[in-house]
């Protein structure tokens, strides 16, 4: 398939642009989750988004009597419950002697369990517009519609704008939380904004990528970008670009190779970026550090063994 043929196809274009937008937003905002050492929070969010999405579906169908496929309604439910899960995990870690990793795992499983229950309820009954609701589990990039793309750009753009507007506060709180508090920047406000943007970054990819693999979009690009950069703006920018490029390349390959699921191929592409970064980035990576060390030792040996 030539690139011209590829871009002539509406579905292919939607898959490519849709996943690239998801990769860009998730990569950029994932940097803050990475630096706060809560990379896995996006896994909690994506799993908690399932009951959020399905709850919103039921609410729309049963209470409002409207079409259950309304993207805005489902997104709202996902964001709402996703945010609650983040607050819940952090709250458990704060008030109990449970550490954050355990708190996140517990949160993830109970929300996901609730989601699976709702899923069963929905699949067993003849609700209108329930087709495609299983896509939230494993994702299906080929169903990205033009409206979905516009919604992702709008909602993802909003999250990126929030990040830019509160850049100084995000950086301050991420680097030194106590210092931010003493300077008078309320921790709760900043956290609500920051985790709100991370929730959005996670949620916009659910339908295309699926909740199981979505975490890779939030975690892998920042981990790769961190190897190459020394500043926060550099890291966030590069991470967003790696996310977008990895998603675009993965989506392209999945279509060109034919009948290969898009999400998994993107995850593999992102992993490729990650491996290259960890091996080759100057200064921090395995290969360059080993080379530097060998060179320095050789020099030292020559110096010390000189007569």
């Amino acid at each position, binding site marked *: 398939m030539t690139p011209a043929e590829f871009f002539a196809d509406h579905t292919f274009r939607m898959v490519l642009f849709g996943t690239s937008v998801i990769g860009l937003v998730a990569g950029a905002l994932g940097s803050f989750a990475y*630096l706060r*050492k809560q990379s896995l929070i996006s896994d909690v969010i994506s799993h908690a988004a399932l009951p959020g999405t399905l709850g919103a579906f039921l609410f729309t169908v049963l209470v409002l009597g409207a079409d259950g496929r309304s993207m805005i309604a489902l997104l709202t439910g996902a964001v709402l419950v996703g945010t609650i899960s983040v607050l819940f995990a952090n709250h458990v870690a704060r008030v109990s002697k449970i550490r954050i990793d355990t708190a996140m795992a517990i949160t993830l499983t109970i929300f996901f369990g609730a989601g699976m229950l709702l899923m069963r309820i929905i699949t067993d009954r003849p609700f209108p517009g329930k087709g495609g609701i299983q896509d939230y589990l494993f994702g299906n990039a080929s169903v990205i519609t033009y409206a979905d793309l516009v919604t992702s750009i709008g909602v993802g753009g909003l999250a990126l704008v929030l990040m830019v*507007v*509160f*850049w*100084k*506060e995000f*950086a*301050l709180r*991420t*680097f*030194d939380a*106590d*210092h931010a*508090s*003493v*300077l*008078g*920047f309320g921790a709760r406000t900043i956290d609500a904004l920051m985790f709100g943007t991370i929730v959005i970054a996670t949620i916009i990819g659910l339908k295309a990528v699926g909740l199981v693999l979505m975490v890779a979009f939030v975690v892998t690009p920042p981990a790769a970008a*961190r190897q190459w*950069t*020394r*500043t*926060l703006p*550099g*890291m966030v920018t590069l991470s967003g670009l790696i996310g977008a490029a990895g998603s675009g390349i993965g989506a392209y390959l999945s279509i060109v190779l034919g009948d290969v699921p898009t999400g998994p191929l993107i995850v593999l592409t992102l992993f490729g970026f990650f491996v290259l970064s960890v091996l080759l980035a100057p200064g921090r990576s395995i290969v360059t550090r080993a080379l530097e060390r060998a060179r320095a030792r050789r020099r030292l040996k020559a110096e010390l063994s000189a007569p």
Partner: protein
Amino acid sequence: MPLADDGGPAARVTNLSVAYRTTPVLRRVDLDVPRGVVMGVVGPNGAGKSSLIKAMLGLVPPLAGEVEFFGRPLAKVRRRVGYMPQSATVDWDFPTTVRDVVTMGTYGGLGWFRRPGRPEHERAEEAMAQTGIDALAGRQIGELSGGQRQRVFLARALVQAPDLYFMDEPFQGVDAKSQQAIVAVLHLLREQGRTVVIVHHDLATVRDYCDHVTLLNQRVIASGPVAEAFTKEHIRSAYEVAAGDDFLEFTA
């Protein structure tokens, strides 16, 4: 002018008690920090030195008690109060440069939304020069030595230009050169009439760095000018050591 207001102490702590879960770490602390002094907060491990500072700055919720700065609650005078935490409290692998960290000291004055501009960057350069880290401005903070890290934190506090500084173990893990640079800044601040509270570990240097001292062991054992408060008797009582050993040689 930094000092034009009610003329009371720089900080006043009244009946402050703090507990972590069920363990009390501070019991009914009453303390005045007079203006223009360098006050050392000294005591054994677990005496609550850091907790005292953190509770005063609202970072740890107190069980009871009140804290005022320049006669007012912290929320009204945040810009006049600076904080230099222990350097081990942050991740030094954070992707940022010395210049960016020091500039963060200006954020409090900027408030929400406003970004640092040229005046803020100029103040950051000055503060870096004052602490002798201007040559390191573009460095990634992870490349710095322990002493250089402390000086970065000191510069970040200086750039805020507060009237009252809280420094938690500024000499922790510091080389001789950095120690000298930090002491020079302390003396300069005192000359400018600023007030500094330092949590300090090394009893031997208390007399060199501090005019006032507060001996703390969950409660205030003694607080006042070094000559009055920093006595063998008080130190023994704070450190719970018996009379007759020679570990207090330098105090006499």
